[in-house]
């Protein structure tokens, strides 16, 4: 795939130059953004026409509001935020909201959650809390500064810091094994399954054993310095090799699809890989990244599975993927711009399927997919209902209650449209403490607020809907719920409101991003 060359690293380039540099040095791409959103919509519309498919109607304000909050900040909006948006009559209000959310602290936290999830084999291990916080903080700093994504990847590939100050958990979580690090980085940064060739060559696959082990060899010299008071450090030793299974011959380093290379003048093996990663010789990073972000927002990738790029598995919209990737490179690997472009498309802002509507193939993106809230989104959204505060939860990764919830709910599927929970988790949601914090008269901030005098029960029910579903109740819902609250005896009034909140947060509409 031809990509514009924006930088080439010669033999004299010193890796230190860009490691640790922060901030944008983005080529002027400010004018590119509206056009790429438009381009996405044009390409999709052409396909819909070709296939004779009519796209879904635009999502209504509430649907889009809740979707944007969940996709960009990982949590539902508060009552105040919902009200403000729903009452805003400016035609450009969704664009303004997107701009505001993209620079909010919650956005960087959410992206750190998403990438941390992607990078770690075991998501919530309470024995690794310090490492988790280190990785999270490191990622979050990159996203706050909106650093060039290629530089972020390069820095990760040469990272040495651990515990609460660095991303080393990414390495230690797989025991520093070169084959695991090779497999993981190829999957998440290159979008390819090199490791399918770990044990032997496959007759119809592009990747050979030499490709896999040659790539894994870049991690062969990584060592963990024994734990000192200063925290955990990774070091790059002067020796260390990988070997083919059942073989004694060391495999030289090579980039996927290339010939063996040794370029010690470029630094350690990990530094060599980092330099290749950000160079124009690497055609994989940009498409893999835009595909990953696309899947986060649209519920499935343009290439699906996300880590299986190759001739055997073409993209559903090859030209769209190409142009997005080129635009991403031209923007200087600007993730924030990518999120902004995609969320401003007509396609992203379509409604999801409604009863009676036509069946539209998921890979046409002619309607929004219904995504399941991740366990982190679910916990944080439940907390938001209970607390009605958008304050950042600084200690959330170390919060034992949150950890226990995430361990119980942790899901496996890479596909956001799957609903994976089972009966034990449903019992916890029905009867456990989390839901009850929101619905319990003694603990719920929302219920406390609803007890304010001079409010009608109609207004209270409306607030409960806004707090959970970011929408106003429909007439039938309003009458049913208001009647329920009004029929309670005065001493049971707050309890009845709690029942309303309970029913709302336990609902499929709450658990799904639609």
């Amino acid at each position, binding site marked *: 795939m031809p990509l514009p060359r924006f930088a080439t690293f010669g033999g004299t380039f010193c890796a230190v130059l860009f490691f640790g540099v922060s901030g944008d040095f983005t080529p002027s791409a400010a004018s590119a953004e509206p056009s790429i959103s438009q381009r996405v919509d044009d390409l999709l519309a052409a396909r819909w026409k070709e296939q004779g498919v009519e796209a879904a109607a635009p999502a209504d304000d509430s649907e889009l509001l809740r979707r944007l909050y969940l996709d960009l900040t990982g949590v539902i909006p508060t009552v105040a935020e919902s009200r403000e948006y729903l009452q805003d009559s400016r035609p450009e209000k969704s664009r303004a909201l997107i701009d505001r959310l993209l620079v909010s602290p919650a956005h960087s936290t959410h992206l750190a959650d998403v990438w941390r999830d992607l990078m770690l084999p075991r998501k919530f291990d309470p024995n690794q809390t310090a490492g988790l916080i280190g990785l999270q903080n490191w990622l979050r700093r990159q996203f706050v500064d909106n650093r060039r994504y290629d530089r972020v990847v390069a820095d990760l590939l040469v990272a040495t810091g651990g515990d609460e100050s660095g991303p080393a958990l990414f390495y230690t979580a797989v025991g520093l094994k070169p084959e695991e690090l090779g497999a*993981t980085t190829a999957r998440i940064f290159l979008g390819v399954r090199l490791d399918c060739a770990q044990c032997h060559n496959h007759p119809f696959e592009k990747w050979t054993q030499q490709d896999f082990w040659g790539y894994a060899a870049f991690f062969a010299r990584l060592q963990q310095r024994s734990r000192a008071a200063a925290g955990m450090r990774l070091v790059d030793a002067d020796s260390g090799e990988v070997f083919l299974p059942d073989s004694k011959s060391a495999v030289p380093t090579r980039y996927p699809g290339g010939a063996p290379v040794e370029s010690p003048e470029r630094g350690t093996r990990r530094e060599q890989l980092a330099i290749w990663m950000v160079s124009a010789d690497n055609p994989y990073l940009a498409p893999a990244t835009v595909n990953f972000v696309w899947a986060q927002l649209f519920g499935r990738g343009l290439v699906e599975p996300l880590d299986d790029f190759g001739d055997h598995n073409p993209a559903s919209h090859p030209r769209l993927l190409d142009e997005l990737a080129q635009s991403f490179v031209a923007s200087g690997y600007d993730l924030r711009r990518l999120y902004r472009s995609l969320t401003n498309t007509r396609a992203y802002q379509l409604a999801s399927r409604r*009863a009676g509507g036509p069946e539209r193939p998921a890979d046409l993106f002619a309607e929004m997919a219904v995504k399941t809230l991740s366990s982190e989104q679910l916990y944080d959204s439940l907390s938001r209902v209970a607390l009605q505060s958008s304050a950042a939860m600084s200690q959330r990764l170390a919060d034992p209650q949150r950890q226990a919830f995430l361990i119980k709910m*942790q899901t*496996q599927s890479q596909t956001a449209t799957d609903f994976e929970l*089972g009966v034990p988790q*449903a*019992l916890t949601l029905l009867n456990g403490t989390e839901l009850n914090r929101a619905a319990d008269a003694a603990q719920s901030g929302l219920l406390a607020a609803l007890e304010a005098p001079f409010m009608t029960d109609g207004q209270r029910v409306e607030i409960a809907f806004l707090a959970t579903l970011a929408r106003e109740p429909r007439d039938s819902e309003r009458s049913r719920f208001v009647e329920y609250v009004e029929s309670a005896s005065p001493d049971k009034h707050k309890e009845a409101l709690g029942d309303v909140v309970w029913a709302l947060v336990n609902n*499929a509409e709450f658990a799904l991003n639609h």
Partner: protein
Amino acid sequence: MNPIRELAATISRRQWLRASGLGLVGASMSGWLPALAAQQAQAARRHCILLWMNGGPSQLDTFDLKPDHANGGQFKPIATAAPGLMFSEHLPKLAELAEQMAVVRSLSTKEGDHGRGAFLMRTGYRPGGPVEYPTIGSLVAKELGDDEAELPHYVSISPYALFNPAAYSPGFLGPRYAAATVGAASPAGAATDATTYANLKLDDLQLPGGVDAAQADRRLQLWDALEQGFVADRPGSSALAHQLVYRRAVRLMRSQAASAFNLEQEPTTVRDAYGRGRFGQGCLLARRLVERGVPFVEVTLGGIEGNSVGWDTHQNNFTAVKSLSGELDAGWSTLMRELADRGLLASTTILWMGEFGRTPQINAQGGRDHFPNAWSAVLAGGAIRGGQAYGRTSADGMAVEDNPVGSSALLATLCAALGIDPATQNTNSMGRPIKIAEGQPLRELLA
């Protein structure tokens, strides 16, 4: 296959209608649904009970005594019903049942840390690496579980997962295969004394504090109206799966099957025979769950007072093991007798193990430390050739002399006893096919 597609594939339309029919109108929290005939149909199915000895039980003071060596310690061996097979003097009731029990005396593993050892023994794979291996209970429940059953497929009683939650996790199988837990929330507390029974309840089956059955019914009616409205408006598998899973949970809350957890239905003589502590009452609960068709039940013995790492006897090994043996002997032997009385022992395989064994040398505090080199586990009941010891350790207990066994072979043998091919593959989220257990079943242990 991913879980929800699998769910969709395994739920026939008929099942779906039946589950939907058990919706909220007409049923209520305050009354029980009629018993389902499915209970009787369970009898022919296989079951597994894992007796998990948290902390690492001393093989030298239970099933592999060394009376002629200084490492042997204080306990005397006693003869059992199986000629030539000796147990500790503090396991007299189990000794009577030794014909049903096969002691594996040659376990040899490589993990001497609680969290890592638990992972190895409970998954059959070493910890580390990118694959989230499922715990054996989830694997077995997936193979043997009946989708129409009201009760969970995997119930874990008093689990103590703090050392390594991954060792208790359904891993890449996904949360649908997670254990329904009993008493997981209060591992340290809930001590019992001689006058009361341990209080064992399925976690989160009870209504939250302050909510009575009438209020729960009202809540569920509100919930059902909203849920039905959303599902009707949004055709799609996620909303449908949400509704189905919640309805199953509600069905369990209201079902007569849930009365399995009500141990007060048992006569006090029976309850007392098991022992009044968490382990004894857990064994009783395991029997009641197996009777009702639950394929995998796990009971943890982690202490006398509450539940922790009771077998981690770095100090005062003999006092602690004597008292733990009393709990173990009463609970386990009564469980086997009662299962046999009901014709269920032949279809129920029991595995007794912990994360590793203890050092043969006795340390200065009268304790024994972690020792994975040479230790014991026990298989009993269904499809197990009892009355034997498999493998052998040296006279000082320091090394395996005969037929070393690793965790994967032990779990493969358990699978074979349960009628499951251990080479059965599941696929993780990265598309890797992974066997239930890599090892080969030990034929000598199988009936």
